[in-house]
């Protein structure tokens, strides 16, 4: 099933008599075993108005196509979506619909927001084959319920996205990264939280582990500042005053090196070919040292401590160790056995599960879409 238009997609869904796996580029590691509904040909940018900061595209449009159109106008997707191919070893071409369905957001989330914060409108086909629209293409819209947010991060379980509209932002003139070598968890947490609590608009706050536990390599705690050149230089100066007692070891101005640092954080490249399961933990940023200190595993920390990627041996259930810390743990990369054992997502509160099931049953009454995903 490879629809090329929304009407065709609706017809296919209406005629289904069993479940399907919705596939954009198939890079996010969530493709189930049901027959594929391939969205890659439902593609094309429908509208792009740089002066209004809005872009509307068919869900199957490749992310690369979207990004190159934006690039030509000096704009970008500010939420910096991760490329899961690096971590998961998947192939294929990520689509904009997949980004939205998985609410994929990168390091800049701490300042700019997540994918869902940039999603202005959606069109989707529900489980009956009906085309539904919500939101639109304008930045402020409170007309009726916000199903736009609900669809973002619903992993295709509520409907097949056919079109998404997004708010885009200008690319900054330049970026600089401050780097501290070898900070322990507590020190790193202090640096990240202090930077984020400053007025200097930090657009990245992360920590990369030492390479392969090699004694010559050190962990890097990194802070990113972006904007117009004069402004970036000014803010870097102010941050150096703020960190007078804990001076950064390096100030990276080279754009290629900056790109390398932040794509490593975004795509979790340190765990690229490493053996083991990869877990993703979301906690209150100051709780990061409690979590990372608990496990003798390797971690990549993002969002000022709010996001922790952990490389753990197979068979280990990281959720048990969260103890009383408030947060959420999901399994991102694992063997089939471990996925079956631990589940992808952490079970929620009973009432919330009831609500989620209720919504899913109404959007997709016959359980056609991505069975097994999201519980």
């Amino acid at each position, binding site marked *: 099933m490879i629809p090329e238009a929304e009407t065709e997609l609706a017809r296919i869904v209406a005629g289904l008599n069993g479940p399907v796996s919705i596939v954009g580029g198939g890079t996010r590691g969530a493709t189930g075993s049901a027959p594929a509904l391939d969205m890659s040909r439902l593609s094309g940018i429908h509208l792009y108005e740089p002066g209004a900061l809005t872009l509307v595209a068919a869900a199957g449009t490749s992310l690369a196509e979207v990004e190159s159109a934006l690039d030509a106008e000096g704009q970008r997707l500010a939420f910096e979506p991760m490329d899961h191919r690096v971590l998961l070893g998947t192939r294929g071409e990520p689509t904009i619909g997949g980004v939205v369905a998985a609410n994929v957001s990168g390091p800049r989330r701490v300042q700019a927001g997540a994918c869902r914060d940039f999603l202005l409108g959606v069109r989707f086909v529900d489980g009956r084959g*009906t085309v539904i629209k919500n939101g639109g293409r304008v930045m402020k819209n409170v007309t009726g319920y916000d199903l736009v947010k609900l669809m973002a991060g619903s992993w295709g379980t509520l409907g097949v996205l056919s079109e998404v509209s997004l708010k885009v932002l200008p690319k900054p003139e330049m970026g600089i990264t401050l780097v501290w070598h070898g900070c322990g968890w507590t020190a790193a947490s202090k640096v990240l939280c202090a930077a984020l*609590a400053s007025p200097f608009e930090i657009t990245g706050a992360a920590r990369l582990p030492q390479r392969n536990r090699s004694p010559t390599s050190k962990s890097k705690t990194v802070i990113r500042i972006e904007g117009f050149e004069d402004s970036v230089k000014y803010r870097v100066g102010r941050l150096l005053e703020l960190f007078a007692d804990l001076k950064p070891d390096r100030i990276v101005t080279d754009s290629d090196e900056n790109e390398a640092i932040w794509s490593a954080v975004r795509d979790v490249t340190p765990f690229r070919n490493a053996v083991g399961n990869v877990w993703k933990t979301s906690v209150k940023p100051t709780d990061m040292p409690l979590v990372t200190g608990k496990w003798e595993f390797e971690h990549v920390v993002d969002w000022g401590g709010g996001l922790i990627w952990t490389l753990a041996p197979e068979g280990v259930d990281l959720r048990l160790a969260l103890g009383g810390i408030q947060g959420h743990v999901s399994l991102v990369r694992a063997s089939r056995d471990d996925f079956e054992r631990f589940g992808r997502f952490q079970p929620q509160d009973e009432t919330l599960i009831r609500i989620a099931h209720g919504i899913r049953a109404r959007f997709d009454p016959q359980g056609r879409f991505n069975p097994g995903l999201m519980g």
Partner: protein
Amino acid sequence: MEMPAPDPKILERKPQLLARLRTVLPDDALIHDISETRAYECDALTAYRCPPMVAVLPASTQEVSDVLRICHEEGVPVVPRGSGTSLAGGALPTEDSVILGVARMNDVLETDYDNRIIRVQSGRTNLSVSGAVEERGFFYAPDPSSQLACAIAGNIAMNSGGAHCLKYGVTTNNLLGVTMVMMDGTVVEIGGAHLDAGGLDLLGVICGSEGQLGVVTEATLRILHKPEGARPVLIGFDDNAVAGQCVSDIIKSGILPVAIEFMDRLCIQACENFAHAGYPDCEALLIVEVEGSQAEIDHQLAKIIEIARRHNPVELRESGSAEESAKIWLGRKSAFGAMGQLNDYMCLDGTIPVSELPMVLRRIGEMSKEYGLPVGNVFHAGDGNMHPLILFDANKQGDLEKCEAFGADILRLCVDAGGCLTGEHGVGIEKRDLMLHQYNSEDLETQMAVKDVFDPQWLLNPAKVFPLGSSAQRRSA
């Protein structure tokens, strides 16, 4: 605007309801005498009034839960209320309903600067949230003009915006978690200080659901460190279309101002006469504000001024001091008051794609002549959120109806231009019957299906948001 007829069976059972509510609430939290329930007869959409059967003012999540459980068992509709500043009639009661006001729940529960969050009870006013973190240099970004009065509860229900949301986003972008009580009394925690809650983004659909999914009693909000400074520039043009082009060019240049406000001739004059802000005599006025350090502000304003000059402005005034900044903002901030001096007015809230600005303003001007009612336009130009203010005389027979018809035409125009009915005030009762212009019945069915899950009996604020005809079956089931 039609409201459903009260259910006589519910009215009859008022004594039983009161008796049960007395078992869970202190006396002073239970209001049922008509002389006092009248205080809750309307919100800021004052054209529509109806005192509720009962009003309750619980002081804790537990009390809210008890009240809802009882109303649920008794089958009584409940209308949640924050401060009653809704411009859409969102907090308008019906004769057979219970108003549940959260005004007594206004404590700060936790401030955490390292994690940049504050947790408050939902009755706390918007401005006093910022007030609670001000001494450490922090603030809560969404800033509706009503911020002195409106409550976080109402902000969440309406997903309210403000003048600075071009840069900081609206309520939904600054809300991390809520404690919410469902209609059957169940208390749920959604989200919190951590960014990802897992599962469906229920917080996203609760924000902006106009009090129809649950009663929010507590909220975790993002706070930010204040920028070092801010400064506006005032730019006057002789042509709306040129002003619109200037807005678009500023945005395209890579600068992200915190605010771009637009006023048309009628508004400029009204504000000038009212506030004496020293506004020029011209067709369109922009106030563009940027933030940062002195040097950063200088740099950004220089760029903005360079762009503006290319469009031959009739006036270009950069603020040189705090007093001058205040003066530039003074007129804009008194716009509603100034228009109110001219006559009664109705404030609309449609959004349009910024590129359609000249066309929409021209059409509004033409319709104004057809209807014989003047319109002033003041709005957040950076994001296309318009606030046309239609002037009318409430004492003149038929003027209100004419004004409402004109307003509806303007909102339809916004939708037809690629925009929407409401950018920040919400649907309430005001735009309820226009919903089918923006959405088809299947789109609305899907939205109502969400309410079915949270509130199967449709007891929470039931006669709002959806056209009465569309929701009739559900409400009477």
